[in-house]
């Protein structure tokens, strides 16, 4: 299996050449022979007594110590992979992760597990512990992308029979992306042995991919093209395009037709993708703006420090994660859940302090709240810079917020999905508080007519303070979510303040539903413009549209209408 990982393009070129020079027969036989030999090797490796094979493997692994550069290492990797022994999975995987070390003293190769200053050394084949070493006493075997790819391809073939279906699926995916005629035989064997229908289908697709780059007869290739065409995703398209470029006749035509089909399906999915991206951008805008919909929309405070509340929430997340990393690493997946109430509290308390200390003296002078909160925002920003330093802080994604899954041809990333769910939950909660609780009622009464509300026995100063704290706290929990997709730096808030104001004003001040609809429509419009106009121009167009829209409806999308407003 020494030559398994040849790049597809190269191979195609080669096969095209051989066809042209009328020596296809010989080449075919060569490949067949090689494949047979590999099969034999594969079988032998399984039949021979384990000890003998292990000794051979150790001899090959020992060669890593002498490999001076990447290509030397690559040779060793290929040699190791060629044994076809499943045991080589451990050292190869370790190498890909950069965990394979050479002990300087005796040039022995180990898998290392880092722990503080020393490294725990494990046997590369058995995985048993075999000592420790200081970092200075061992050298890491360097890997680069090319090497990682070679290892991945090699592991792909080796893991076709792995117990875990997920590993088999990964192997199928790798083999699909790196088709090679030599893969056909092991895949055939694997397909025969496979019981899981899902995995089997993937194996068959991988086999089809390999058939396309082999010298199999045209009929086989046409069947393969229809199988791959049915898969219909971007990888299939990628493969078909290269087949299209490197073949003639019926195969080329079939590939053209199939890739045309895929292209048109993908175009359809593209529209869906834009909508999804728009919704996801909308959820970010909603989160950023929703706190402002309270402090600005409901209370009428032009709160320029709103962005800083978001930032405080993000920094709370950072601090929580730091504590967890240092003291309770097992809780990392819970870090955001823990950070949520804390971020709410921190931002709410700061908000409360701002309201009691500054804003309460300015009710009825809304434009002056702009100046004061602008000052507050400068102070908060610089305070955070002084305490935490000006650089970005690391906030990690918990495992349930990492990666993505596919819906049809649409890749949906978990963090975006959770942020969407989260933003809608926050919105619903806020709506409930405003509309269904006595506190919400008092808030709305105070906002409508502070003096009259006081005469109804409502403690207006408290309602003011708590409302502002609520808005700030909501901004704080928005910060927890935004820390997952953006920088956590003192400038975090500045990036959101203008967008937030746009959303609230576009939706209609004082109307939570307006904020919701405003956020999502701005998000979607933006994402539909972006592929055509580019990110910069798209944003400009959105701003201009907002300006024009406000001319048409000077009170925003959901303007409060009717007799009620004039009363």
């Amino acid at each position, binding site marked *: 299996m020494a030559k398994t990982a040849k790049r597809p393009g190269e191979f195609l070129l080669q096969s095209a050449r051989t066809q042209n020079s009328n020596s296809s027969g010989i080449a075919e036989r060569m490949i067949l022979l090689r494949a047979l030999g590999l099969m034999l090797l594969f079988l032998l490796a399984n039949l021979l007594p384990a000890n003998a094979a292990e000794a051979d493997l150790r001899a090959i692994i020992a060669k890593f110590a002498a490999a001076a550069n990447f290509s030397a290492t690559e040779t060793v990797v290929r040699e190791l992979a060629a044994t076809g022994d499943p045991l080589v999975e451990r050292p190869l995987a370790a190498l890909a992760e950069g965990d394979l070390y050479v002990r300087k003293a005796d040039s022995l190769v180990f898998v290392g597990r880092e722990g503080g200053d020393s490294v725990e050394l494990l046997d590369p084949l058995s995985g048993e512990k075999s000592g420790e070493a200081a970092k200075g006493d061992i050298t890491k075997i360097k890997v680069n992308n090319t090497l990682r790819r070679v290892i991945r391809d090699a592991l792909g073939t080796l893991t076709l029979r792995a117990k875990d279906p997920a590993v088999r699926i990964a192997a199928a995916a790798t083999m699909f992306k790196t088709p090679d005629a030599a893969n056909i035989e092991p895949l055939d064997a694997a397909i025969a042995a496979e019981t899981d229908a899902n995995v089997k289908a993937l194996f068959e697709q991988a086999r089809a991919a390999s058939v396309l780059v082999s010298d199999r007869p045209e009929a086989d290739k046409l069947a393969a093209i229809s199988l791959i065409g049915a898969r219909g995703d971007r990888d299939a398209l990628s493969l078909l395009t290269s087949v299209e470029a490197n073949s003639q006749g019926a195969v080329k035509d079939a590939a053209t037709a199939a890739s045309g089909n895929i292209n048109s399906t993908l175009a359809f999915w593209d529209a869906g993708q834009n909508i999804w991206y728009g919704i996801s951008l909308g959820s970010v805008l909603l989160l950023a703006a929703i706190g402002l919909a309270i402090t600005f929309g409901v209370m009428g405070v032009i709160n320029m420090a709103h962005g800083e509340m978001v930032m405080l929430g993000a920094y709370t997340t950072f601090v929580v994660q730091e504590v967890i990393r240092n003291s309770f690493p097992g809780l990392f997946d819970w870090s955001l859940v823990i950070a949520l109430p804390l971020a709410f509290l921190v931002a709410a308390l700061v908000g409360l302090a701002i309201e009691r200390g500054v804003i309460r003296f300015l009710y009825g002078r809304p434009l002056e709240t702009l100046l004061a909160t602008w000052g507050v925002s400068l102070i908060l920003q610089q305070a955070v810079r002084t305490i935490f330093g000006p650089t970005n802080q690391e906030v990690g994604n918990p495992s349930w917020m990492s990666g993505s899954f596919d819906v049809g041809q649409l890749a949906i990333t978990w963090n975006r999905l959770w942020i969407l769910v989260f933003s809608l939950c926050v919105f619903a909660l806020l709506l409930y508080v405003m509309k269904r609780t*006595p506190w919400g*009622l*008092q808030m*709305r*009464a105070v906002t*409508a*007519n502070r*003096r*009259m*509300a*006081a*005469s*109804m*026995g*409502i*403690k*207006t100063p408290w309602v003011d303070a708590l409302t502002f704290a609520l808005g700030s706290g909501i901004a704080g929990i928005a910060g927890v979510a935004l820390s997952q997709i953006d920088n956590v730096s003192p400038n975090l808030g500045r990036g959101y303040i203008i967008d937030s104001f746009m959303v609230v004003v576009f939706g209609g001040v004082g109307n939570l539903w307006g904020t919701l609809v405003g956020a999502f429509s701005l998000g979607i419009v933006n994402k539909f413009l972006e592929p055509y106009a580019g990110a910069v121009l798209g944003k400009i167009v959105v701003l201009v549209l907002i300006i024009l829209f406000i001319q048409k409806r000077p009170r925003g999308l959901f303007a*409060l209408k*009717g*007799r*009620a*407003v*004039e*009363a």
Partner: protein
Amino acid sequence: MLEVSNATLHYGAAQALRGVSLKAGAGKITCVLGRNGVGKTSLMRSIVGHHRLTSGSVAFEGKALDRSAAYDRARSGIAFVPQGREIFPLLSVRENLESGFAPLKRADRNIPGHVFELFPVLKQMLARRGGDLSGGQQQQLAIGRALVMRPKLLVLDEPTEGIQPSIIKDIGRAIRYLRDQAGIAVLLVEQYLDFCRELADEVNIMDRGQIVHTGPAEDLDRADVRKFLTV
């Protein structure tokens, strides 16, 4: 029950009240009459706590209120129906009524039955926005809202202003009911003479920031009293 003594109020350099003294007792309707701009509204707003007196004092049930905020006065039992009604326009009728729950204990947080008996129209309109009601309905809502607070003293500032006669009659009936059945002290500011004469147990007449006459409702027919009221 309510005792205003020697109240003086300045708006900057201008003086709105000049040593006003006034009493309102439980189970009685006390009416304040006077021409435009003589300080009636200023007096009412001082009582409920919207203005702070320059000097003098307001006592309620024997306790001085001068230092307490409007919401504390409301909590001690003073309900206010302001001129122009000032209902919360964007809140529904039900929410307007429920805004009176704030000073109540949790157990008492319900709308007393007599509110809907007195103003049946409110029951039909519970889901409407306050601002969408007609002027008369709004006035009824404002009084109903004040009653939710279970007040001991109800301060009404020109409840008949700009309202059709049939509703004025309803309002009059309601005020009388509150005095007779609930034993509430009612302090009423009016320009509408007949309304006052029909209802009031005692009238106070104001002119230029002062109380110039105090007496029973029948006094209103006296010429020397009338002269303060003609324009």
